């Protein structure tokens, strides 16, 4: 372990001396103090609803007839196993995630690199402009893309047709093209990721770059050996967020497919199926079961990512 790491152990209170116990207890107590806002908030605003929603899974609750709910044991779970739509929608969510997750990291990373370049004039302006789409409200975004991607009058197809002479595809209602369409819309929402990675890049000490250049390294090597490793915490952050967001993906495909889950269930993302069951079919009991299944899967995926983190994420602070 590095000197840094050993010093870190020192700070975390594991002194190799007799005063170990009391110091550790003090540190732990302080830890609880600083953690308390979250503990209180969690108990007040999250714990009760989460447990309640778990309780729903054992009932046949209908939102519009709350008084008529009754206990049904594991029925909902049995339905869960036999429901073909569960597998279908999970497949949709996961297969979209496989494409979208890398893109949601690579594109912002590329943009951040571009905007980090010292040779770029007007950096502040460029950054603002690239960030701007992130600030547009979702209702506006769906209108924009419904219009922009329309087969007949959408700018994209008109550009393809009038300027490039290609017959543009049916972006919003074809099984082949709906995923690229969703990706395009998703790219518009990478402003935040770009920002965080850029901020992270900016904190890399310039001495490191200087030292590397003195040693004769070129741009690409610098990027691979210095920039990239040092921003892994931020990449990790964005990866987790993207993962969670993709599990919860709902608003955009719902509006684009007019609540139907797309042509032939191609955009029947898991959350859309959940919404359909819980609200449209008014079966919150079964819906809660669906939600908790998603929760378990999502939690496992997140834990897995955290476990792999120690292999590729570099923390200078020596913690975790």
């Amino acid at each position, binding site marked *: 372990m590095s000197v840094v790491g050993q010093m870190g152990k020192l700070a975390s209170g594991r002194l190799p001396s007799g005063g170990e116990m009391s110091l550790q207890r003090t540190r732990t107590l302080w830890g609880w103090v*600083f953690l308390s806002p979250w503990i209180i908030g969690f108990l007040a605003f999250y714990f009760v609803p989460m447990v309640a929603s778990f309780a729903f899974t054992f009932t046949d609750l209908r939102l519009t007839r709350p008084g008529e709910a009754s206990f049904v044991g594991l029925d909902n779970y049995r339905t869960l196993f036999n429901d073909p739509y569960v597998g279908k929608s999970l497949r949709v969510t996961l297969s979209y995630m496989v494409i979208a997750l890398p893109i949601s990291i690579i594109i912002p990373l590329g943009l951040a690199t571009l905007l980090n370049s010292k040779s770029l004039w007007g950096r502040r302006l460029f950054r603002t402009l690239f960030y701007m789409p992130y600030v547009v409200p979702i209702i506006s975004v769906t209108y924009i893309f419904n219009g922009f991607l329309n087969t007949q009058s959408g700018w994209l197809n008109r550009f393809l047709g009038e300027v490039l002479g290609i017959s543009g595809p049916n972006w919003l209602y074809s099984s082949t093209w709906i995923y690229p369409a969703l990706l395009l819309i998703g790219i518009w929402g990478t402003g935040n990721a770009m920002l965080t990675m850029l901020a992270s890049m900016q904190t890399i000490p310039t001495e490191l770059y200087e030292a590397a250049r003195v040693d004769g390294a070129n741009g690409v090597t610098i990027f691979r050996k210095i920039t990239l490793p040092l921003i892994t915490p931020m990449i990790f952050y964005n990866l987790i967020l993207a993962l969670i967001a993709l*599990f919860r993906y709902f608003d955009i495909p719902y509006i684009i497919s007019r609540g139907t889950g797309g042509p032939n269930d191609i955009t029947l993302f898991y959350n859309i199926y959940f919404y359909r069951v819980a609200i449209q079919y008014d079966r919150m009991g079964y819906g809660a079961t669906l939600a908790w299944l998603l929760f378990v899967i*999502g939690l496992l995926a997140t834990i897995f990512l955290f476990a792999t983190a120690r292999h590729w994420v570099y923390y200078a602070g020596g*913690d975790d």
Partner: protein
Amino acid sequence: MFKSKTKLWGSKKIVARYRNLGLGALIVLFTTMVLIVYLSPFGYMGVTAIKSKPQITQKDILPVSNVMYEYTGEEYPEWSVLTGSKYPLYHVPDEDGEMHEWALIATLEDRLIFLDPGNVREGVIEWAGDRGTVEPVVEAETFAYVGTGYKEEGVVRGTPYPLYDLEVDGQMRRLALFKSEGETHYFLNPEDPEGGIVEWQGDIASAAPLEEAVFYTHRGKKIPDVVLQPGAQYPVYEVPTEDGGIQRWAMVQEGTGATETYFINPDNLDAGILAWSEQPFADQQRPTANPVKRFDAQWQNFEQAWDAINFPRLLFNTAMIAILGMIGTVVSCTLVAYAFTRFPLPFKNVLFMVLLSTIILPKQVTLVPTYFVFSQVLGWTGTWLPLIVPHFFANAYNVLLLRQYFSTLPIELDEAAMIDGAGPFRILISVIIPQAWPAIVAVSLFHFVFAWNDYFEPLIYTLSNPEIAPLSVGIQIFNFVYDQQPHLIQATALMGLVIPVVLFFLAQRVFMRGVIMTGVDK
């Protein structure tokens, strides 16, 4: 980077400088191109925001309207039958003395023009008879009672009863007759229907019944096909001429491939109505003339949206919710992230996972119990409290970010301060926060933007009190399934963008500033 150019001097320096310039220009160019592609949907948004609904349906990218010509010539023809117009009916005898009910279209010097409503296809009838024999067709003016009384007296709700002007108790009154028994007549007063029944004795023939003219509304096509009215506006087209030039004519009747198109030449009104197919340069039935358009942006869309949703109030609400929440989240998330990164907590990883789990569970499923807590237990619906208070207790997104950031801060500085005798709080304030300032500003900005556009929770908690709703909820008024107003949505979204973007631009200086590491021993 070029500090180490101490090694370069002379011509190499100059070359290097030019290379730098060239590289910079290239990068700017490339970035600009990427930006244009990236923001092209924005262009669509901006352009839609300044169009009217008919302009949206046009193929032109920019909002354009036809250039119109206002007709200043004479009315053509002398008379016309227009669709939807009313023409009074008259009793007219024809040559054989038979009486007809015809609609009077026009009164000319020597004849009258009539149209037979029962036989419109035959066209108009030119009648040159004696005008004295023509009488207007009239019917009684009526009043219908809409109340629920007088059933025993024989008043039937909804039946039209004829109106009369007659003298009652020395006063002239206008009453509706609903029943007559010999010389006794019973009336209702239209001005005061519930005021009781008026009884009147006398000969009803002495009372003056109110009559009104009867009209025929023309439903068929207008007669003739082309009608010109002074003051009417016609679109201007560019028409090719024999000698290869262009003239500007006004189209007075549109046609398709199968029908005729008619123009008039504003510079030569005497030439009359020009049929396209008869022109020497018409090489096909469909005119190859193009409409003349002018740029016509609907800047009033912004004003309309502003007024319709009371933009200043919504802006204020949104800002309040965003700022208060931002303060809360920054304070609480800093504390919590500090706890996670610098302190030995039992089951730290488990706790962290619990923190993350609050955002993994789909919010729809916890919505009802959460709403229940806020509404029945706390009574906070209709206020901003459900939207602000929870943020004072930290949330997973920002804690994650700050945790990541804090983890990159070297522990040496902490230790140095500890050796100097500083307590954990002091360390937080003097060591961690100054270093993590960029991340903290980032968190503030992220929360601000999130709160700016969040719409479902604000919607449901401000339902009973629309005065306090934020912008994202207010904008929904333009999105009702019937009669969506896409131009107003985009206009409002553009106006709503301004503040966060300006904030971002200004905030960059703070959190984009790189931190120069000092005090770290190599």
